[in-house]
């Protein structure tokens, strides 16, 4: 268990007739218990060269426990008063972080559902025939469908992870998203057969993903370079 404390002090001698000064300290604990958060992204800085101005996904919802006691720290390191980052949670604009401003807030990290589908290697394969998906090409080493499935499973896919059961390979998207249709796989998957072969890779089960609801997005205000300091404490 780690012990991390966060303290805020808000002070002003001339905002009100009474001098204002209050301070609050909290240990960063896991949800509903007194044990400290142990996971963090580490303190980082992201410099954005913003020409044209583009949004930047700072933290994905699936990088923290949904509805956990996660906390996010942000600071705009700009020294020009008019420069700001606009901070969004999903589609909701939270606020503008002007030069020198910082924020510290809880984060629900509500993720979506990852798309998943299973394809079963079947038919009669000939060594040398290929299976391609997600830009990754697999060449059948022999005619045994279970072996070919194992070859497909052994590959690294940029956007998918895999699991295998006999000749069936289950692909799971690395990130939750709503692709708008069941399985990009059916469009992206390609088998190159040789003459007379009836090699198949039939999608036997599929479930569409759903979009995340809590990704943290930042948008810089100017086309010049801006830098954000940030840290995620999470479960």
């Amino acid at each position: 268990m780690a012990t991390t404390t966060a303290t805020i002090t808000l002070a002003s001698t001339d905002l009100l007739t009474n001098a204002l000064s209050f301070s609050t300290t909290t240990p960063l604990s896991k949800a509903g218990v007194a044990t400290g958060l142990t996971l963090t992204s580490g303190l980082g800085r992201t410099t954005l060269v913003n020409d044209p101005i583009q949004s930047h996904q700072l933290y994905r919802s699936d990088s923290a426990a949904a509805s956990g006691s996660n906390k996010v720290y942000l600071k705009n390191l700009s020294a020009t008063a008019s420069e700001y980052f606009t901070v969004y949670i999903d589609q909701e604009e939270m606020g503008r972080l002007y030069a020198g401003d910082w924020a510290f807030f809880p984060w629900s990290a509500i993720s979506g559902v990852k798309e998943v589908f299973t394809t079963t290697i079947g038919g009669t394969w000939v060594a040398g025939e290929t299976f391609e998906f997600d830009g990754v090409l697999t060449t059948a080493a022999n005619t045994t469908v279970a072996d070919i499935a194992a070859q497909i499973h052994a590959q690294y896919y940029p956007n998918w992870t895999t699991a295998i059961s006999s000749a069936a390979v289950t692909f799971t998207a690395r990130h939750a998203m709503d692709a708008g249709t069941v399985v990009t796989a059916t469009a992206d998957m390609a088998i190159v057969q040789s003459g007379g072969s009836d090699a198949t890779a039939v999608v036997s089960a599929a479930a569409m993903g759903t979009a995340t609801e809590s990704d943290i997005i930042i948008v810089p205000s100017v086309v010049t370079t801006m830098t954000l300091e940030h840290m995620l404490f999470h479960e």
Partner: protein
Amino acid sequence: MATTTATVSISSTDLTPGMPLSISASTTLNQTGLTTGLEIVDMGYGTLTVADSHKALHEALGAADTSNYLYLCNDATEATSYIEVVLHDTVIGRLYAGDWMFTPWNQSDGDAEWSIEAEGGSCPYAYAIYKSSYVLPDSTQGTLNP
């Protein structure tokens, strides 16, 4: 012009082994894009009960695209009692007992209100909202507003 400073310190000796964490940041709460300070503040205390549905903490009654800040603290002492913080219809996060938050707030439109709800037990809370501007809501009883 008022000068209000917000300072945060985050520290840990054992969160990242071999690399003690010590963050300290301070900012002056300024008007939108300027170096002159904010002069409007709204502060309060209250207690949320579990029986309450989401309660409006503050409506978006200021000018759009301005510099505003929200401080909110859950003063509950039971670890399982938390405040769910919602910005319009987006759940931002959970403030567990003793937790606080400080965040910018862009009153970009009428759909940018903050609301809060207690879960797991009653939650006393304190808040402060520093604002660029404030617009009173229209009166619904015109005869009382000659």
